[in-house]
């Protein structure tokens, strides 16, 4: 696994904390970026590199509350 330090801004995860019902499905599918707090709500590290994109999309699709989205990261 080589990491490029100058990777272009990829996509980022956005959580809608009001919609989120704390199922924790997302954390099962994307443990690399999402961990659950003590109440079962997700804490997110938003940056999604290309290598994680597929897993992130699965997590977004699986969220029962449609509370998770993947969008283009704003550069800068």
């Amino acid at each position, binding site marked *: 696994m080589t990491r490029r330090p100058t990777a272009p801004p990829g996509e980022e995860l956005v959580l809608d904390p009001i*919609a989120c019902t704390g*199922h*924790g*499905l997302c954390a*099962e*599918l994307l443990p690399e970026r999402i961990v659950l707090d003590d109440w079962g709500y997700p804490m997110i590290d938003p940056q999604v590199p290309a290598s994680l994109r597929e897993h992130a999309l*699965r997590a*977004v*699709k*699986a969220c*029962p*509350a*449609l509370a998770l989205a993947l969008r283009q990261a704003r550069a800068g």
Partner: protein
Amino acid sequence: MALWYLTRGTGAAALVLLTLSLTLGVVNVQRYASRLVPRFAVDGWHRTTSLLVCVLLAVHVGTTVLDGYAPIRLVDAFVPFGGTYRPVWLGLGALALDLLIALIVTSLLRARLGLRAWRAVHWLAYACWPVALVHGLGTGSDVRPGWLTWLSLGCTAVVIVAVGVRLADRGTAIRVRAGAAATVAAGVIALAIWLPSGPLAGGWAAKAGTPPSILGAKAATTARSHR
């Protein structure tokens, strides 16, 4: 005739998978999870079984129409109650298929529809299942007290348990609980009256609206269908 057997086999398999899909839907919504069975697995199986039901029903409908033994057209599979072969019971099958298509299409477009609209349609799952059940019992050739009856009753037991679990959910309003429980009880009583006096009683094929031309042919070959 060979296709007709495929029709019956896929119909029975579809009922089992629809039962499984509904049960997994309930398990999913109950947030069940353990180390061996994580939540995303339940969610995935719920989707997969639902899509498998569609595949089975495509074969179920396809073989029915292609077989040509009974006068059933492709439209009869989608437009309820317009056919000439056991119109009521076949019509329920078409209705169940329409409901299923609505469930699948809205689920595949869930992100675009938004949660509320999807949710509203997804309640139809609880209507789709009993309609499919009665279709199977009402159209199944020679249901009699045979394996199809037992299979149907087994699936019914599973669904009753699943609905019970769903109603026990703390989030379910008392009024909804009472209404749903009453509906289930009424359905079970209706089934207990209808089954013995309808499909399990003699002469059901004629009563159910099988065209006389087929009934005549059937009398000649009836030995075939009995074990």
